[in-house]
């Protein structure tokens, strides 16, 4: 569904992505794990059209998308739920969700808005309770839910989730990951970027490891969990454990 080929990107003179190649199949949850500064968020921003790649190509289904503006991506059904949520703090939860459907044709907006909001409230019941509250007054977890809900209003075929569990209480993070699985089961393809490899590997079908702007490993969660490098770097299990075995 999404194919990224040899993509490089720079911030000024600093090369952040080095010939990154990977793909996501329809109906999969694919995780992209990597430490701070590995280039994960940059990669998502390149895919979303917020940051132009210096080289490489990106295909969404059969369409070349690496030269399109962000709003065109949304119309194709490719939505990013950004890190830091980026919701509209001074607007109510309802207004935030309403704006989520901005990219849909006017007629559908009117016709579908209510039933679609209900679907999102079914996924995240707490948002219904907060419907008339300003988004800025929500807790971190609720804001994350709103951010995902807002993206879902555009009826995406593929979601790019940027560290959805960052800074959340474990239970809330768990809830969000469960919803991610639900979305996949309902036919949405997901690219999940995570620093927290443990949780990401729990729910994904395949994963890639990004390090210093390069894809260094790929495999099923099972394969990666068995990999010493991954265990050392991301799961906090150091060599000692192996030695003493």
């Amino acid at each position, binding site marked *: 569904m999404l194919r990224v080929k040899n993509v490089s990107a720079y911030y000024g003179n600093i090369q952040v992505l080095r010939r990154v190649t990977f793909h996501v199949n329809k109906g999969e949850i694919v995780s992209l794990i990597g430490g701070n500064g590995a280039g994960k968020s940059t990669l998502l921003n390149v895919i979303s059209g917020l940051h132009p790649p210096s080289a490489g190509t990106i295909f969404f289904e059969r369409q070349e998308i690496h030269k399109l503006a962000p*709003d065109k991506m949304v119309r194709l059904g490719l939505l990013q739920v950004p890190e830091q949520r*980026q919701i509209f703090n001074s607007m109510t939860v309802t207004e935030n969700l309403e704006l989520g459907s901005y990219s849909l044709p006017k007629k559908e907006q009117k016709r579908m808005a209510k039933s679609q909001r209900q679907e999102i409230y079914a996924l995240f019941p707490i948002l219904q309770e907060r419907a008339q509250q300003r988004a800025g007054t929500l807790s971190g977890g609720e804001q994350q839910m709103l951010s995902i809900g807002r*993206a879902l209003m555009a009826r995406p075929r593929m979601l790019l989730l940027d560290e959805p569990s960052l800074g959340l209480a474990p239970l809330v993070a768990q809830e969000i990951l469960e919803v991610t699985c639900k979305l996949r089961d309902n036919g949405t393809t997901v690219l999940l970027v995570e620093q927290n490899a443990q949780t990401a590997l729990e729910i994904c079908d395949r994963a890639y490891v990004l390090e210093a702007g390069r894809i260094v490993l790929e495999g099923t969660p099972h394969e990666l969990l068995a990999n010493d490098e991954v265990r050392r770097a991301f799961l906090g299990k150091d060599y000692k454990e192996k030695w003493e075995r």
Partner: protein
Amino acid sequence: MIWSQLPQFFVSGLTSGSIYALIALGFGIIHNATGIVNFAQGEFVMLGAMTMISLTQVVGLPLLVAFPLAVLAVMAVGWLMEIGPIRRARSNNILILVMITVGASITMRETAMHIWGKTPRTLPPFSGEEPLVLGNAAILPQTLWILGITLLVVILLGFFFNRTMVGKAMRAVAENRRGAALIGIGVYRMTLLSFVLSGGIGAVAGIIVTPITTMSYSAGVMLALKGFAAAILGGYGSMKGAVLGGLLLGAMESFGAGFVSSAYKDAFAFLILLLVLFIRPAGLFGKEEIKRV
């Protein structure tokens, strides 16, 4: 006795305050969509008035036809300004974009000088010149037009920003550009719309004020500065602030001129501007920058 003139000061303050409010709204709309200060806002005002003068006095169109045409013409100018220099700059650098608006302002002013010459021109009042006497205040019919049309513009803008999807999308861009882009709001289209809208509002201000003052090719500069001061006073970027800042500035100017000396009328606006910047830079309704860490 000067106290008996209070109502008169109040009325004239409200009148010029309305104009400042409209100009401040124009500043605010572009600021919210782009983050820049549009120095050509005053020229939008001037162009609106000048186009109206030509349409009524040279072409001979009736008021009701010429008014919307003149507004549309200036909207087109705003449109050209955005799709031309602003977009071509391909820059997000605020300073570069602001300098472009300064350039656009000078260009419009000089072009206007060549088209309409240097002598100030005026429009006849929309309906009669017989003032309404209300207690101690004489109210010109044009004053009522100014207040009424300003009120109408404010109500329409309120409806646009709070009830329509496009208006909400513009607010979304103002609040969080990244977030807006990521849900499919075309930030460029919103920028374009903000210039068109500001052009239209500026033109309305110019057209309704000209019958009680006059308009010349360079009159936009002073009007823009007053509108800018009003916007700062209300809190730059706040719509509510723009309206109240405008009215307050108009009133203070009028009372200042009445009680102290009308020679310092213009100085009051800038004195207020400086005071606000010293004491409360965020203005009356502006948000102080609070960042959660």
